[in-house]
């Protein structure tokens, strides 16, 4: 049954998109920053897993144990130094700076590692799949990624709603000045949000590197998908991002069913339709898409 296959494959890739997107969503929610280099950070994480982690005598399968905390630290530092300076100017500057960073990162990767496709090597695990019936195959990797995505989103949600740091992040997202008046160092809170964003997108990058071949320009298309997932699901809602990712995945599988060339286009079409009909997304708060 092709319909079931479309839905299942769509849901599986949707989990991946959601993992990609939650950092983007967080950075926008907290700092009102759209990090155009978001996708490229994931790609850098994937390259780190392939080239740098083996130097530490760690198998690429366990790369995330090293890469994720490292990227959390990098995220905090980049936010406190470069991005904060851009934010202090105005949103315009922040957009231009993150775009500039994106281009610089992509071209640096191109220079250092060339345009050849790479893959995170986890041996035979990557090919294992679970046969549901004669038509439907569920790849083990994508199932694990979906599971990880749900876990990460759940953990993030709990963190934000139950812990005092999470509460602070929500307060700063709501009203930065009022939070300052409560003694919150908003720049530090921004740093923490960026750290979380970088860590989750690094995880997504490694997952990406495991499932597909990647090259320096892969960041762009993933930013696009992450962004579409956030907008479709609704800004400001983490679970909405998961739903958005799944819907995007399903739409893409649907398009691919007719013609492989239509895959991305079908996703773009859904995105544009949501934009036209319900700009705040499915579960969006009444936060406008205007800055």
């Amino acid at each position, binding site marked *: 049954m092709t319909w079931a296959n479309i839905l299942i494959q769509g849901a599986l890739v949707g989990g991946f998109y959601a993992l990609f997107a939650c950092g983007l969503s967080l950075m926008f929610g907290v700092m009102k920053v759209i990090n155009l280099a978001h996708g490229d950070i994931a790609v850098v994480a994937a390259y780190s897993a392939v080239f740098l982690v083996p130097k530490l005598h760690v198998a690429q399968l366990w790369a995330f144990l090293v890469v994720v905390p490292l990227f959390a630290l990098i995220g905090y530092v980049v936010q406190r130094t470069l991005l904060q300076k851009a934010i202090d100017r105005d949103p315009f500057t922040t957009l231009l700076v993150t775009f500039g960073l994106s281009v610089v990162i992509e071209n640096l990767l191109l220079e250092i590692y060339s345009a050849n496709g790479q893959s995170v090597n986890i041996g035979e695990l990557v090919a294992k799949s679970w046969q549901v019936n004669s038509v439907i195959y569920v790849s083990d990797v994508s199932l694990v990624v979906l599971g990880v995505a749900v876990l990460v989103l759940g953990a993030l949600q709990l963190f934000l709603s139950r812990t005092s740091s999470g509460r602070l992040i929500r307060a700063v997202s709501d009203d930065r000045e009022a939070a300052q008046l409560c003694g919150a160092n908003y720049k530090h809170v921004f740093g923490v949000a960026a750290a979380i964003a970088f860590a989750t997108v690094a995880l997504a990058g490694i997952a990406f590197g495991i499932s597909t071949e990647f090259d320096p320009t892969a960041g762009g298309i993933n930013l696009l998908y992450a962004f579409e997932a956030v907008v479709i699901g609704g800004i400001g809602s983490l679970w909405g991002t998961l739903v958005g990712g799944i819907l995007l995945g399903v739409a893409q599988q649907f398009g691919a069913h007719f013609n492989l060339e239509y895959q991305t286009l079908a996703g773009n079409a859904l995105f544009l339709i949501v934009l036209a009909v319900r*700009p705040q997304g499915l579960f969006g708060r009444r936060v406008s898409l205007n800055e």
Partner: protein
Amino acid sequence: MSDTTLPQSAELPLLVERSTFSPIYTLVGTVVVFAFFTAAPWILASSWVSVLSNFFVLLIMATMWNLLAGYAGMVSIGQQGFVGLGAYATLYFAIKGMSPFVAIPFAVLACAIIAYPITYLLFRLRGGYFAVATWVIADSAMLLILTVALLGGGTGKYLPGLTNLSPSELDHDTYLATWFVAFVVLVATYFILRSRLGLVLSSLRDNETAARSSGAKVTSTRRLIYVIAGAGCGAAGSVLAISQPFVQPANAFSLNWAAEMLFASMIGGMGTIEGPIIGCIIFFVLQQSLQNLGAWYLIIFGAVAVVIAIWQPRGIWGLIRDTTHFELLPVGYRVSASSLSSRRRVSRDAN
């Protein structure tokens, strides 16, 4: 904007003028520049001519991007969509038998027609969301073109209609096409910014809320600028197709165009006409000097743009203007109090 307080005595007559020097100089200068660049194929070496060709293509794009972002406040990372559409419209008309050079204005018109309805969707967004949406649209345009076999699909196609010219004739004609289009675009931009539309744009650039409340038609102005920018980038794509002349989606719709036009405007100075010119010059100097080092020119260009955005947001031209108060292509107004006896000018630049 530099401002010093006007002298206390309001009895001094206030002078409102458009520039620090007489418009005659601008006119003469323009004629000289036009003559020089038109004669370039016969004056300069052919390698220079082809560099100039590429320079003008980028200049068109940067000027348009600057109009969009620096004046109307819309940051787009999707103008490469119009570059590609312009290139492919030219290809289409050429396939249908039109001379590619004649096809240029038609390609421009096609881009304008496509840009207009897009604004109704796009303008629901602002800021970062607007920017990414422009990219989604550009990406979609490329994906759509990829499915059209007539236009060569993913592999690309040679632009027909150029084979009857000798190589040097072709180079000359291509160069002249890019120069004339660039000249028209620059002159048009200059007049737009000098006009009332330009005043609205400047006020948009400086303070949107104030602009709205003073009655300026913000949305229709934005729409007009978006269409103009789309048409302008289409023109760039059109002459790009002619100069290549192998038209390929990955090249015509490349995000690198977005990067280059953006960085050139940022480094040169946004919100000015001279800025993109300077930015493009710097770009080509960088590109020519780092020719053999792959993508390093773009890495450095991007890094410089990031540094300038944070530490010198008015760009290089902004720096020059702040220190010398010199306007090459004046579009603003100067209000000054001039006294007959002393030549001391206390003025407030508003532009």
